[in-house]
């Protein structure tokens, strides 16, 4: 499994490979590049990764998700390099017997990937400026760069 891709993600192909005879539910999440952020017009994004660490960590997150939920398929792939508006930057696919596990596992995987995996986006704006941005800023809340606040925890409350 390739966890990182320098070329456009094959969302349809990944979904086609996500079918499983024992899975009654497949959830596909695609994180896509918006043309705006915080009131500024975005031209495109560029993603950088620490490739070997990112691949290992994504694999570990998927493995942990499989321990928590009965998943027949769990896939995550993240883009690197220049990603255009409307393109997919990250895809997570989860397939399970019923939809609740597929939704929960999908959310768990994307949340952890966003917070923990060494991948960084740089936003390039239409006015020619750029900004490394959207950092996980959980350390402001938790006081620890290794402690995160996850959406999937918020959902459970």
């Amino acid at each position: 499994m390739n966890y990182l891709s320098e070329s456009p993600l094959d969302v349809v192909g990944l979904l086609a490979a996500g079918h499983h005879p024992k899975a009654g539910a497949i959830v596909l999440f695609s994180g896509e590049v918006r043309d705006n952020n915080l009131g500024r017009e975005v031209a495109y994004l560029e993603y950088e990764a620490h490739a070997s660490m990112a691949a290992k960590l994504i694999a570990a997150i998927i493995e942990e998700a499989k321990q928590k939920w009965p998943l027949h398929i769990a896939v995550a792939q993240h883009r690197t390099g220049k990603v255009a508006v409307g393109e997919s930057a990250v895809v997570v696919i989860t397939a399970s017997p019923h939809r609740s596990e597929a939704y929960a596992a999908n959310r768990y995987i994307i949340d952890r990937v966003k917070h923990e995996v060494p991948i960084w986006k740089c936003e390039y704006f239409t006015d020619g400026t750029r900004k490394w941005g959207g950092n996980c800023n959980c350390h402001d809340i938790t006081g620890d760069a290794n402690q995160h606040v996850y959406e999937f925890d918020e959902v459970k409350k």
Partner: protein
Amino acid sequence: MKVQVFAALKDYFDKEFEVAGKVQDVEALRQHLLELNGAAGNMLKICRFAVDDEFVDPGYQLKENDTVCVIPPSSGG
């Protein structure tokens, strides 16, 4: 030892550079980087460090032939 930086840190340091002499542990390296470029202070405070593809604690003892990666907070997705 060799230091590799990523993402926003590349605005403050070369992507890869050598640090000569004895650096005791990760916290000492953080201080050294701060002295090299104080403008990176806010970023360095919240970075994690990794050796051999594993995150390491501030007290991790560094060896001269280590390659240390300075990992800013993630912003994937």
